[in-house]
């Protein structure tokens, strides 16, 4: 199977930040969510994949083509929308749609019309009169309707009201019904990623902390509440990412949960009160605070 993208040893240095030695790939037909705090390197990674930026080191392959050498072939089948990307404010959305249609042979006019209705956008209105949410939806419409094989979305739902966010997520879910299409999207909102992604990648401080399929991610992590005191030497408990003592209760955040771990905890004199699944947000925050090992 062709990889939607594959990067090896990818490095990009700026004055105060460096994306360092990223190796990551995604098979076609998958959805990968990039999770990271502001300045983690998500946007840098997406810009490198889209050809907007050049790497200092490493290799990039997108849809089977080397980047940036074959960027025209890649960009023919790529959609890219980022939070800071703007359209021509003096022109109407219809003008933009005609402009994009003239470039991309795969432009789907019927789908564009459906998205116009769904996003409640007026094609004849100049972009200057659009709200932030409308601008984001217009940019997504221009990307979705060209039917790209790979969509790169940088914070697609940031700044949207709940209704607009739901519309965008629904449109994304529709796109993902087609198994041949792949999406890599970044978001602060881990709920969006938890809802849509097959694979989750954590980026922090310019490094890739972890990249795994969502189910195994969520299955492995647990919040365990015990009665008793944390006994000892943390180095003997690599499965445990964080501990918090609250009176007689001990909360453990476990990165590799197993029945054997529960038995070991009981063997330390702890009484297990509850074992709960963790949200992606909680897993991410715990991973970052634990210093990166997920």
């Amino acid at each position: 199977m062709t990889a939607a993208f594959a990067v090896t040893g990818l490095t990009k240095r700026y004055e105060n930040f460096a994306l360092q030695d990223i190796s990551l790939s995604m098979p076609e037909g998958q959805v990968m969510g990039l999770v990271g705090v502001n300045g983690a390197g998500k946007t840098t990674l997406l810009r490198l994949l889209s050809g907007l930026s050049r790497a200092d080191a490493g290799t990039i392959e997108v849809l089977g083509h080397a980047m940036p050498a074959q960027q025209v072939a890649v960009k023919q089948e790529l959609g890219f929308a980022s939070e800071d990307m703007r359209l021509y404010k003096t022109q109407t959305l219809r003008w933009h749609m005609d402009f994009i249609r003239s470039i991309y042979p795969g432009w789907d006019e019927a789908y564009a019309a459906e998205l116009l209705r769904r996003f409640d956008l007026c094609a004849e209105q100049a972009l200057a009169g659009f709200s932030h949410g409308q601008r984001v939806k217009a940019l997504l419409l221009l990307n979705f309707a060209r039917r790209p094989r790979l969509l790169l979305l940088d914070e697609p739902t940031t700044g949207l009201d709940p209704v607009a966010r739901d519309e965008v997520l629904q449109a994304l879910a529709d796109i993902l019904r087609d198994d041949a299409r792949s999406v890599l999207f970044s978001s602060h909102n881990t709920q969006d990623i938890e809802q849509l992604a097959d694979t989750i990648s954590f980026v922090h401080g310019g490094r890739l902390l972890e990249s795994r399929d969502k189910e195994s991610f969520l299955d492995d992590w647990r919040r365990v509440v015990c009665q008793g005191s944390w006994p000892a030497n943390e180095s003997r408990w690599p499965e445990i990412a964080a501990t918090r003592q609250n009176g007689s209760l001990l909360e453990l955040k476990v990165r590799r949960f197993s029945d054997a771990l529960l038995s070991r905890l009981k063997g330390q004199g702890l009484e297990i009160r509850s074992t709960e699944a963790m949200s992606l947000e909680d897993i991410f925050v715990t991973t970052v605070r634990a210093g990166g090992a997920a």
Partner: protein
Amino acid sequence: MNVPGLNLPVIKLLIAKDWLLFQKQLAAYVTAGIFALCLLGMAKPWSFYLGSLMLIVVLVAAACFSISTSLLAERKEHTLAFVMSLPVTPLDFYLAKLLGNLVTFLVPFLVMLGGTIAVIAFTPLPNGLIVFATLVFGYVLLAYAVSLSVAMAVESEGWNTFAMIGSMVLINPFIMLLGQIHAISGYTNTEHVVWSAPAVSILLAQVVLSVAVLVATGWAHCRKPAFY
């Protein structure tokens, strides 16, 4: 025509896009230029000075407008990332911007250059002015090429403003310099169009330097690390 490595259909679309975005404003510049030429054509001392001043102002304004709207504004308003996400290479983008800018600037420029020569040739103004006027237009072309190159190579708005204003303001010393060269200024009040060696050398230098600056910028642009 298919040129290997270039996405010509998209380059053409980008040029057409820039033309469409700026055509109304450029029409206004051409109109103002024609008005200035009418003043020149009246061949009265006051109208000549007013017309030539207005012509230079319109030329400089057209040059600055073309650069600031198609390049600086694109960067400032974050539409550059949108354009660069289309199926183009940095070289395609550079060529589209270069040709788009040349079209949007050269159309009013050539209209005004042709108009100026016609006005001088077909009114009582001395024909010897044609060489002088052509060299002034040549200077504006060079200043435009320098400003365009700085705009493509340097992201700082301050440097771009400095390059545009600086290069255009230097037109005054340049006109004074032409006035000091007898082989050029000596014929401005005569009916003879004399392309003396200094005049031809200056014109050649203007054209060669303009092209060299733009080629060097293209080379540098294709090696830029980021396009957003």
